[in-house]
């Protein structure tokens, strides 16, 4: 399937990637926004700083799309927090986004490797 998504804009690429990261994070269990951000940062060994200006819009958009569901819960330190969990639709989206990411990675790698080859020769 040819990829018709216009990944021209670096910001959109970022958004798409963020969706993937958020959905992946939620496969380990329901989590609030701050927890998601922390998990991504920790999981990438601090390489990825999630911009809150992108995270919350992404969460709310995913909620509207039905990929995640949100409910209010009381956290371990007795705070009311909004906790997001993955829905069935979210899992499907994750699979899709993931394959898209894989293809992108392969394509990128192909180009980058090809670019590297002449210098080897």
């Amino acid at each position, binding site marked *: 399937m040819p990829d018709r998504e216009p990944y021209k804009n670096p*910001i959109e690429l970022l958004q798409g990637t963020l969706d993937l990261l958020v959905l992946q994070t939620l496969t380990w269990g329901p989590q*609030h*926004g*701050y*927890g998601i*951000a*922390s998990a991504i940062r920790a999981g990438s060994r601090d390489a990825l700083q999630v*911009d*809150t*200006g992108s995270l*919350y*819009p992404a*969460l*709310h*958009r995913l909620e*509207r799309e039905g990929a995640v569901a949100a409910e*209010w819960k009381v*956290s371990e*330190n007795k*705070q*009311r*927090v*909004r906790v997001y969990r993955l829905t069935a639709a979210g899992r499907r989206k994750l699979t899709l986004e993931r394959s898209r990411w894989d293809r992108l990675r392969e394509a990128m790698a192909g180009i980058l490797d090809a670019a590297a080859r002449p210098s080897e020769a």
Partner: protein
Amino acid sequence: MNPFARLFGRRRRERELDEEIAAHLRMAGEERTAGGASAEDAARSAAREFGNVGLVKEVTREQWGWSTLAEILRDARYGLRLLRRSPGFTAVAVAVLALGIGANTAIFSVVNGVLLRPLPFPDSERILSLRPLVTRPVRSPAAASYPDFFDWRAQSRSFTAMASRRGVGMTLTGVTPSAYVRGQVVSSEFFLVLGVAPALGRGFVPGDDAPGTHVVVLSHGLWQSRFGGDPGILGRAIGLDGHDYTVVGVAAAGFQFPVDEDGVEFWMSASMDAEGEKPWTSNRDLTALDVIGRLKPGVSLAAARAEMIGIAKRLARQYPDTDRDRDEVLVIPELDRVVGDVRTPLLVLLGAVGCVLLIACANVANLLLARATARHRELALRTALGAGGRRVLRQLLTESLILALVGGAAGLLLALAGQRLLLQFSPGRIPRLEHAGLDPRILVVTLGVALVTGILFGIAPALRLSRTDLSQALKEGGRGSEGGAGHNRFRSMLVIAETAIAVVLLTGAGLLVESFRKLQSVDPGFSARDVATFHTSLPEAKYDEARQVRFYDDLLDRVRSREGVRSAAAIFPIPLGDSHIGITFTIEGRPVPKADEPSAQYRQVSPGYFETMGIPLLSGRDFTDRDDTKAPPVIIVNEALVRTYFPGENVLGRRIRPGVARDGEPKTREIVGVVGNVRHRGLGVEESPEYYIPYRQLSIADMTVVARTDADPRVLANDARAIVASLDPDVPVFRVRTLRDYVFASIAQPRFNALLLSLFAGVALVLTGIGLYGVLAYAVAVRTREIVIRMALGARRGDILAMVVRRGLALAATGVVIGLAAALLVTRLLRALLFHVAPSDPATFAGAGLLLGAVALLASFVPAYRATRFEPMQALRGE
């Protein structure tokens, strides 16, 4: 879900979002405290990491999807917040808009009340005015005679009813104090044509027109003020000029006809015109009637017009002596007749305020563009965060609309105040002006104007901004010098447009002012200084001819004996007093067919009139007390009559016979004097042939007393009533004015037009100056670096000054040239309002251009001067 429920849903969600983000910040803070940071540092660091909370919330909210209403409200709230944050900009923009919209609302309310509002009768557009049209030597509408009216009524098929009417003034007798009341003598179909019946009693029936039937319908006002609103008035007789008239009806409150005459207090049947030895109703010579008709349903105006012209042509052939030259009929809606004279000036004023509004729009657009530069960064950020171009466009338009609506509301208040001023300064001759109030139509129009205005001045800046190149804007860091070039070109165009419109307005105003100046400097033919006047009307039943003469003799004696009165005399009708009596005459020794008899304006005067008025006696003598019925009939003519009918001849001793007599045949009169011309009809109307007849030889019940005084003529005005009452308390005194009041009233309309148009042109000039200043100040600010470098390279302050001023003048000059060209086309519309000034008067055009040039110079000089004061180091560091 209805929009309101959705709105409440949003409230909750907004609270939740607040809480969610608060929790995020708290958790981030807690983690930092756990890591050993102080609570204060932790909170600060967490907040820094989070970024702009407001912006994050906003972008997040945008993901929810919006109901249109909520979205508009949100945009509006954001816009309001933004406007509050820059109060200076907001105040200026709102003030400019309020001025523009307010002026439009005020003028439109007048146009609405006067021109657009239908007459207050059922199917009023079917009520037509019918006037004979004299086609030779010039086409002009005239009054109809009773026989003509009877023929029209009998022969036409286009009307359900047709009625005649003529104005009349009578003395209300039998009640004290007696009063002069104005009324209308109408034929019996009058109320049928109007489609209304009196509120009390009945209208007229065909029998009421028969001689001997004296019936009257009173106005609501007269009924209330003089008869205490007595419902038993029906069937009672009241005295008018000493005769008894039976009241058969009382008109509804607010009933007024004709609507362009104030204070019509009664309507009487035409029976009085059918009485006497030579009744008006059988005299085709005597033209005094206005005719109204109600068009039959299904008949077009054009068909009615064609039919009436056919009838007039027949009558012209049938009665050539009287009707030969009146062979057409002017058939127009009654409303058009009423407002005919004021339509052009009002539309001109409306056009002028429209121009002011356009300039206001251009100015606010300019302000918005200037401010836009400062907002580049904000907008770029919004776009980066995912707000689409259309989203930003809508946000910007919402802001303009808010500005326009606030400006419109302020303008409405301004219009209310302006309207009051307008009424105060109005010439008093604009019919129906009392209807110029607020009504739903005005509100709708104001709202519409505000919305259109908002879009007009908002769209261009918004389009420009929403297309802003992101990276460019962010790089420029809000200075906007590159994008500013495009902006500045656009702003220059706006200023050129403003200048052009202002020039058009200035030219128009200049023409009207010049025309008014010329009008004012016209010599009326008499000296209006220090002359008191008042009018009296003798009840005919009580005063026969001899007693009329005696009354005015006594009255003039008493007035003359007052201290401070130098001379006094009586005349009818008084110059500039709106009464005109044209009477045909024959010249002895020059017989002509009756239809070719010349006509001249008729005046009746007492001896001493010319001296009192300062009218020069060119040859011959004035009338004396001996010119009475026992003496040979005499007459004095004006210069125009001599010039027209006796060019180069000595007229003294020549005899003419005006067709006027009280009883019996008109007398042939010897010309005993020639006097200077007087502008009787208006300062701008050329003199026509006139003659004066001594009142002792042909007395009349109505006369105006004129008295030249040593000092302020108002002194006598106060005494007038006492003097007349000492002679006969039954004789009413009215129109107590100075002669100067008459002159002033006659030029009030052009004065009003010139004043208002000048006012609008002034506003336009100021706004244009501000606009030009804004553009130059901005251009200078943007070019600071360039200017400083120039100076560093040796440019003198004078060079910099010249550079900026030259740019300002170049803009203004372009606008002036375009404006003058446009004015050349537009001022032609003013032709009807101009007196002795050509619509393309070169002096006025040059003046308008120069005035604008001067303002442009001033507006350019300030920013130019500022540019020369830049401190190089400071300016460069500020970059």
